[in-house]
């Protein structure tokens, strides 16, 4: 998929997340004071004043919290794939941490190859990574 503007920009705040993805690992931030996890990344922990965050790997397991099936009008590259799925995954370590992703049949699978009618809220999923560029290995999800 050649959608250059839609690849996330890597910056100081999110670089460790994408570094983790390149290493095949899902990482989020944890508050050094309270130990509580948070996502998306921030430069300081919201859970304690002045607390620095640290990065920690997770199991990469979760459950589908919700999903949508977009139809056109869409950006051209996505219109070509429609209807496809977008899911939100609640992570096992803390179900209030939720990641937007896609449900695919296998690592590298297309976002439109699974029948949307078979997607269920609550279904367990496991992270896989698809290499879109040297920098960006995008996390997607397969049925667990």
């Amino acid at each position: 998929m050649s959608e250059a503007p839609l690849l996330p920009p890597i910056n100081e705040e999110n670089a460790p997340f994408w570094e983790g993805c390149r290493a095949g690992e899902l990482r989020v931030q944890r508050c050094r004071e309270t130990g509580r996890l948070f996502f998306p990344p921030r430069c300081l922990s919201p859970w304690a004043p002045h607390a620095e965050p640290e990065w920690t790997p997770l199991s990469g397991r979760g459950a589908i919290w919700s999903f949508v099936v977009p139809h056109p009008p869409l950006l051209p590259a996505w219109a070509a794939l429609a209807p496809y799925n977008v899911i939100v995954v609640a992570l096992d370590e803390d179900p209030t941490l939720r990641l937007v992703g896609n449900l695919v049949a296998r690592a590298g699978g297309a976002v439109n190859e699974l029948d949307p009618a078979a997607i269920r809220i609550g279904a367990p999923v496991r992270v896989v990574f698809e290499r879109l560029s040297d920098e960006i290995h995008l996390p997607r999800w397969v049925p667990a």
Partner: protein
Amino acid sequence: MPALKDAAAIVGIGETAFAKRLEDSEKKLACRAILAALDDAGIHPSEVDGFASYTLETTDEVEIARTVGAGDVTFFSQVGYGGGAGPATVGHLALAVAAGQCRVGVAWRSRKRGSGGRPWAGAQQLSVPAQWTRPWGLLRPVDEIAMLTRRYMHEYGATREHLANVAIAVRKMANRNPRALMHDRVLTREDYMAARWISEPLCLFDNCLETDGALACVVVSAERARDCREPPATIHAFAQGLPRQHQTMVNYWCEDPLRGPAWACAEQLYRRSDLRPADIPVAQIYDAFTPLVPLSLEGYGFCGRGEGAAFTEGGALEPGGRLPINTSGGGLSEAYVHGFNLIVEGVRQIRGTSVNQVEGAQACLVTAGEGVPTSAMILRR
């Protein structure tokens, strides 16, 4: 005694025509709407000394003031977050008037969303939060709200029938409003169920219109309001809401995503009000998407958590229903101008001049968008 309560009023309303495409620029449309609102109030433009609008507005106060012929301006404010801004623009003027920072304030919104293109389709640098959503194809506002909607349906047993109730109720309002874009188009339940998907579980009729148009209103002190041409719509209470750990539109990264900004906003609104939901007979509820209505009904206390969908049953939101909403046709069926038509229609309800007048309405709630940092106000006679 709170300083804001009943201290200021809307005394003038103005609007342009609404259409899929208008020839005039957003600047000219804005000035036309502002001048119409001042005419309605019987106030000369040279008396204007306050402005409030949306950060998304393409024309700044300087150009507006120079074009309409405003006087020395001593208060100007812009509110962010698109559809969250509407009542906040009026509320900021009310606060400024109450505090003596200005005497004649004008709020406006002018937008060519009908002919000017879709914001989500433009080339863009991905910001937080877009960098965590768009790479996976969650591209448009409708996709973002559809995600919350699917979860809402799952948790509370809401169905597409409930969303249809909203779309049909608001369309019935528009069918009585000759100025509404959908005035001549009846919407049946069959039409709704047969409509094409935009982002499942939302279909075409769950989405607002794409409109060119502009609206404005004039805010002065309650004392001055008594001398204006039309009966004032007193700004009884006003609040904004940005709840803890909220994320604009993609409110998935907080403990309770279905408890949106309306809840925090409503808590402050009623704290400052003599009125309770049961005292409010008519409401203008931000309706960029139909599911925002049941979510807002819950947030603003017209029913309990999870009961918003059931509240729409039995024609409750329709003309003559338990709580008629969006009585000029709202964003779904009159015009979508980031909710400013809801403000203007709220004033009409208080004046008694709506095409879907709720007889004897003493108060009207006007809300901004649920799903973004939001605002709301209660207007009363």
